[in-house]
């Protein structure tokens, strides 16, 4: 590779007792790429993402963001990443703008002006009215939009998505992937754990299939059809 990837795993290994959660995982995600991790529950997808967040320390190997090892500089590496879990949990008593203000200030160290915050929320697909509502009553999809707005506000170019579209209705899921495309077009590197083969094929540039902590296959989505991807996935699951 000519340039170093924004997001890189080098031999990531993590054991919990006798169980191997991650087994020498190698992967790299470049700017403008969406890398989808597929695999059964417990295959190690979330553990991999948690390693990039320093929520989990690998036993051996390392996770790198922009060339820096996460474990060595956990705070510095978080400056450019955004994290969107299945449900983006926010402070229910605060409005969307206030939540965004809080997280953006935490992320950048300075307090952004309200127009900027509003702009990000609107870009992420919320209306101005919704922006001032308390998020306690927000749906999963609306919360996700706030998550994207946080990414926009901090100018993140590394996105870690942990099953972001599970449980979203098709319309919300569609909107989310639209946003993802936008971020990608701006040069973000996205690592996404998902069960949705269809979306992985549509939005992803590459997919990696994981099983018992190992990456068992990796391929470019433009080289394979829907049916073939599903075939391949099931084949690996049956082995």
């Amino acid at each position: 590779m000519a340039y170093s990837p924004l997001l890189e795993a080098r031999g990531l290994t993590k054991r919990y007792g006798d169980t191997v959660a991650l087994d020498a995982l190698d992967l790299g995600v470049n700017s403008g790429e969406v890398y989808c991790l597929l695999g059964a529950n417990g295959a190690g997808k979330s553990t991999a993402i948690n390693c990039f967040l320093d929520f989990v320390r690998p036993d051996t190997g390392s996770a790198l963001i922009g060339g820096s090892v996460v474990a060595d500089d956990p705070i510095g590496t978080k400056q450019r990443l955004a994290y969107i879990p299945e449900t983006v949990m926010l402070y229910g008593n605060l409005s969307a703008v206030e939540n965004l203000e809080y997280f953006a200030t935490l992320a950048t160290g300075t307090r952004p002006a309200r127009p900027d915050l509003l702009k990000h929320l609107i870009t992420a697909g919320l209306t101005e009215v919704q922006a001032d509502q308390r998020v306690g009553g927000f749906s999963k999809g609306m919360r996700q939009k706030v998550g994207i707005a946080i990414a926009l506000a901090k100018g993140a170019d590394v996105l870690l998505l942990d099953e972001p579209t599970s449980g979203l209705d098709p319309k919300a899921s569609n909107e989310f992937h639209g946003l993802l495309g936008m971020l990608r077009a701006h040069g973000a590197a996205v690592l996404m754990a998902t069960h949705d083969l269809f979306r992985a094929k549509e939005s992803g540039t590459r997919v990696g299939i994981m099983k018992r902590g190992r990456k068992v296959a990796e391929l470019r989505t433009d080289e394979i059809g829907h049916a073939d991807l599903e075939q391949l996935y099931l084949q690996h699951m049956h082995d």
Partner: protein
Amino acid sequence: MSFLTMLRFEWRVLRRERLLWVAVVFFGALGLYAASSGARFTAQQRLTIAELEQAHAQRRDSLGQLLGRLHAGDTSRRVSAFADPRSPAVVGRGLGAPYTILPPAALAPLAIGQRDVQPFWAQASTRTKQTFFVNDEIENPAVLVSGRLDLAFVILVVYPLIILALTFDAVAGERERGTLAIVLAQPVDPRRVLGAKLAARALLALALALGLTFVAVLLTGVSLGDPDTWLRLALWCAVIVVYGAFWFGISMAVNAARMSAAASAVSLLAAWLGVVVVLPAVAAAVVTVTHPSPSRIALTTRLREATDAASAKREDAMASFLLDHPAYIADASGGAPDPNVVSMALQDAAERVMAPEYAAFDAALDAQRDAAASFRFLSPALVTQAALLDLAGAGEARFRAYERQFDTYHAEWRDFFFSRTLSRRSLSPTDWDAIPMFRFAEESASALWRRLAPGLGMTLLLAMALAALGRRGLTAAAQAR
């Protein structure tokens, strides 16, 4: 991002929680009620004191006038022997005697403490000391059983509960709600974020407690003219800060222990029980068993026995008394001895027998108080209680000082009247003006500070150790899952 900004955000989140407002309103209302209760109690004491002083001034004036007339040779009015202001024995036994008053301290409205069971005035007399502190204030015992609701109680017992209620789920709650993961995905030191969360809540409780103190001081008419009062008030606030810091430290350590919110609530409650209930109970039980209160019943019986014995051997008592007071013999030229001198002799004989018993009684009481004082180091709650009560002049120390000053005064009083009785001198108007008066000398704030410092220091050290422990643990607690 500055710590202050984080505090502000935390405050914004907190402001919208109902629990907070319930806690604020409850704590505030309770504190205000407690302050008014202390103020009412103190006002009643002050009223009694004013009445006593007025009554004494009146009686002193009328007796002084009578004395002046009698001295000038006016015999138009017959004066009963029991009400003759010329007789040193009669006046010494209490005719028109001044009151020895323990006035409420400057910060008295802030704490009632032991004041509702300690007498705060007595009347001077040449009688034996045991007959004094009997002016118990009238109070329904059923009310005393409940204990007083004063600001010191609210700070001691409720203030920690408020700190704990506000902070118990600062970390676990975020983890359980899932917001912790989003926070920790930001480039900030988790210890600082979590520290700010806890601090915002604890500072709020602290502000409430301090605010209550100031409101109480303003509303209850504490006079702030004396710099000494300011110093005491500053110390009172320092005690609140240190005690709050201790509970904050406990909360931080528990928050760092990665428990669920419910488990953390139970642990904090256990800590509260341990510090506020169990340790003081252990201290009290140990002191009660090792240093039981000496029995006043036994002392009363012994005094009566000694007095009976002295009366039975009246001549012996008289003889030995006269041996000790040769000044009297020179005057006694035959005839029946002065009954006043006889009663002095009998009292003297009884007191000789009783002196060691009194000493043992006082020593036992002092030992009990000392033991209680050293056992206070067992729990920051006891340290804090002692400090708050001392600062408001509602604890043992001030009463003990009063008793000691009273003893000195009592000796002076006796000397004054006994010497005149022995030399058969009747009181002149000059003597009348020279009758010793009592004035309670307050302990200086710096002396008080020296007494409070070890306890406060211990609490502060504990607070810092707990906070350090918590700080180390918070990093681990920051792990989102």
